[in-house]
């Protein structure tokens, strides 16, 4: 994964795990890399990785069993929340950028509808 140096790295580590959960690449009970493995592979300060893992433990996203490893413990409800939060972030970004281009909500919605129609037509052609 590529990290963006202009945002807190520990946040990006958590985001990365959350995206993997939402996409179904990681699920309840899966083992994730140890902090050390993660730090060495991603070339990140082990203290930063430790902070991300601690935060995920506090959120009850993962659980670390001494001597065994760190496992995903996400519930259905939490997964739904994570998905919603990620969607919200993308939406915030979309709205902010569109507004900066001068689009109001009505025009954004109109654009989304026409995009949907356009894609429908394209899919029918396939």
């Amino acid at each position, binding site marked *: 994964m590529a990290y963006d*140096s*202009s*945002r807190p790295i520990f946040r990006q580590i958590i985001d990365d795990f959350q995206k993997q959960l939402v996409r179904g690449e990681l699920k309840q009970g899966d083992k994730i890399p140890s902090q050390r493995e993660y730090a060495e592979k*991603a*070339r*990140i*300060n082990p*203290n*930063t990785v430790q902070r991300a893992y601690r935060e995920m433990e506090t959120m009850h996203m993962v659980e670390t069993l001494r001597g065994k490893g760190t496992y995903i413990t996400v519930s259905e409800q939490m997964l739904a929340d994570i998905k919603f939060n990620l969607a919200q972030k993308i939406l915030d970004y979309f709205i902010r950028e569109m507004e900066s281009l001068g689009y109001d909500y009505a025009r954004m919605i109109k654009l989304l509808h026409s995009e949907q129609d356009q894609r429908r037509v394209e899919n029918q052609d396939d």
Partner: protein
Amino acid sequence: MIEFKNVSKRFGTTVALDQVNFKFEQGKITGLFGPNGAGKSTSIKMIAGLNRADSGEVTVDGKAPRISRANIAYLPEIDHLYPWMTIKQAARFTSTFYADWDEAKYNELLNFLNLHPKMKIGKISKGQRAKTKLLLTVSRRAPYLLMDEPLSGIDILTREDIIDAIIKDYREGEQTIIISTHEIAEVERLVDEVVFLDNGRVKLSGSAEELRAERGQSLVETMKEAFRYVNQ
């Protein structure tokens, strides 16, 4: 913890450090950044007990650096190794000075860095010499590790090897590392704390993650901005 209290140092008419105050927190990796002549090497040498402050005080765990020397591993910027020695001889030589020399760690890192004990220091490449310096410094189990420009003048792949070795070797929460460099981009993800020095003064300091969160910028951008601002 390493602390500088109102530290000043001059070399002739040149002011190297001008009433500097900062702390290097225990168990953190701190990047000491700044252009050439900012005072990075002078600061590191003071912690290593190799030069003294004209005024003010530098302490390591509350004591004078000279007293804490056994706890400090120092990687100097200059080529300090004897060219006629092999890596193995240099390792033997270094290990006799320090009780915390860790032979197992030396062997592991030797391998990891693709070095060979029979290589002659005078005959290996600059990159290999840089790796040898790192090897000999971190093969000690010192709680404080000072590295003065460990990446300067080295190719990108060797830099990555060096950073990988630092991460591999690092003991979370235990070891305190100070790295001086002007290659900030290379160590963005390696440092917990940063101190930006310019003309012997602290321009900016803080947690790397907090600076990113506050400014939405990389450390490189933050440093550029800090210097642009002061130079106006």
